[in-house]
């Protein structure tokens, strides 16, 4: 058993770290305040392959793996969690559906431009009335000749403000439960008539990320855009979320490590009672506790990533990683603000943003409660 990254992963980590420090960090505050993601930055990341890391070079991807993808998620999220979710939704939720369930033709037509950096993807599952309870979905697809007409509304669709391609889930058979009646469609958000994307939803954190309501009004979709067959949508949606959770876990690790690093840097300079704040044993012990939790969260995340790369069962590992890492992110960012005192609470420093950003990791792509359902489900308790 080896806990060290190999040379290729170390070099990839260096690329992600350098890029994040140089290109993303200077923009993070402004993007958060304006609630707009910088499109120039997006294009740069596409150019260097950040949007196709674990996918085959045969389709224009990076040819790397899930472990490298978690390194990217951690490094970018250390400086900006919004960048993390932008990459994650595209990579784990949108691309993975086509990569795993698409036909060769669909991969050439839809996956290639997504992973070679020319298009951005998103994923529409959550509805105003159906969050953790996917069974409550109301969006329907009705057959019209060979085509399907999709009608309904999806909420919290990350990236939808600028994405090209969306995997949208709609009920094609309402007489059976969603687990059997849900179908996944590949739709083109920018070109298909009947699609309306709302303004960015105002949120507490990850405010630079695009997150909108996407409404579908009799949107005509040809049958060659169905993924994995009619009625296979539930399985596809859940499989994508398993992958997504590895990315969110890594995002949470990044937020936590980024906040702790910032707070330590500050506490070394800030003097109270005649000495640097970091020189108090309470500061040191708390930092030790936080770093230990971050390391544990990272190892859980890497375990899930390696299991996926080795084609082993990874769903419960991914859930455990996300459960622990998101909890760690919230705890560490809260501590980071506390260590910095009043300045930590000010917008001049990034930790208040990180504290706001951390909370979402306990909610999206399955809440912490859902994570406990997944982990306990794997424990043969019943």
């Amino acid at each position, binding site marked *: 058993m080896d806990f060290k990254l190999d040379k290729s992963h170390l*070099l*990839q980590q260096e*690329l992600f770290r350098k890029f994040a420090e140089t290109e993303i960090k200077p923009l993070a505050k402004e993007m958060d305040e304006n609630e707009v993601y910088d499109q120039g930055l997006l294009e740069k990341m596409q150019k260097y392959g950040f949007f196709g890391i674990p996918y085959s070079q045969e389709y224009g991807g*990076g040819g*790397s793996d899930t472990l490298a993808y978690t390194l990217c998620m951690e490094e970018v999220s250390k400086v900006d969690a919004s960048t993390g979710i932008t990459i994650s939704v595209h990579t784990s939720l949108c691309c993975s559906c086509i990569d795993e369930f698409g036909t060769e033709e669909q991969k050439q037509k839809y996956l290639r431009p997504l992973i070679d950096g020319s298009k951005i993807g998103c994923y529409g599952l959550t509805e105003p009335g159906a969050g953790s309870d996917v069974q409550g979905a109301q969006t329907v697809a009705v057959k019209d000749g060979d085509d399907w007409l999709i009608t309904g509304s999806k909420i919290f669709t990350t990236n939808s403000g600028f994405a090209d391609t969306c995997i949208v889930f709609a009920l094609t058979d309402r007489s059976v439960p969603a687990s059997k009646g849900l179908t996944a469609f590949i739709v083109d958000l920018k070109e298909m008539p009947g699609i309306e994307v709302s303004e960015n939803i105002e949120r507490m954190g990850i405010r630079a990320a695009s997150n909108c309501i996407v409404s579908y009004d009799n949107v005509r979709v040809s049958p060659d855009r169905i993924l994995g067959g009619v009625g296979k949508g539930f399985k596809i949606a859940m499989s994508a979320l398993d992958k997504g959770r590895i990315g969110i876990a890594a995002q949470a690790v990044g937020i936590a490590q980024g906040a702790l690093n910032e707070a330590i840097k500050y506490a070394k300079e800030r003097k109270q009672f005649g000495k640097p704040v970091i020189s108090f044993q309470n500061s040191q012990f708390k930092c030790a506790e936080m770093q230990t939790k971050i390391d544990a969260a990272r190892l859980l995340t890497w375990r899930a990533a390696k299991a996926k790369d080795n084609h082993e069962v990874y769903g419960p590992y991914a859930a455990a990683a996300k459960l622990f890492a998101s909890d760690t992110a919230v705890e560490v960012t809260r501590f980071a603000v506390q260590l910095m005192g009043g300045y930590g609470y000010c917008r001049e420093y990034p930790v208040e943003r990180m504290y706001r950003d951390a909370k979402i990791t306990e909610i999206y792509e399955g809440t912490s409660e859902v994570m406990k359902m997944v982990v306990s489900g794997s424990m043969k308790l019943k």
Partner: protein
Amino acid sequence: MKIVVCIKQVPDTAEVKLDPKTGTLIRDGVPSIINHDDRAGLEAALQLRDKVGGTVTVVCMGPPQADVALREALAMGADDAYLLSAREFGGSDTYATATIIATALKKIGFDLVVTGRQAIDGDTAQVGPQIGEQLHLPQVSYAEGLDVDGDYIIAKRQFEEEAHMLKVKMPCLVTALSELAEPRYMSVRGIVDAYQQEITVWGFDDLKNDLNPEWIGLKGSPTNVFQSFGKKMRDPGTLMKDLTPDQAVEAIMAKLIERHII
């Protein structure tokens, strides 16, 4: 067009400290990077290749750990890489280093050789020009612009407050300033490919037919460092402008006499 770029792996001096006793760099635990000027030279070479076609080969002399610098260059887009590494090469000064690299370059072949102006750990700015001299190549040092026109390169050479535009027939050598080009990042795909590619490692035996062992390593190095020490800030010199040659001679003589130098 075959471009060969010489790179050096150096300690990241942004994170390095000096040993107060010996005056030398403390290299332990300091990350290694590709020297800034060399990286700019590599970027300029990649841009030229993308414009006119051809290949970019990177060459690095150093210990086996310098492998990562070459992987990085490959991940930025270089086509192939050579590592010159041998016990016999250790202890070489700039002259001996240039001898080894020039020997390798002859074997590799090139139309254009690009080196960095100087390395941030030694700051000599000698190896590039010495390679050029040993290969009997025309050379342009301190390049801040580089283009190709048929069999010629067009280089913009920084020269104090001026710049010279030079047209030089290939084969030739250019030493690059950091200003020459803003280096690109590696790409994810580039890194994955870089670790699947072979790097040619040449030791002494691979070059020995053209390399006299007396010319390399400590033995072949005319310079020896006998002391390293920190520099003290000096006062800026006096600039006397618009003098005739006679006035200038007089002014210099007066200063030398004033300081009892003559």
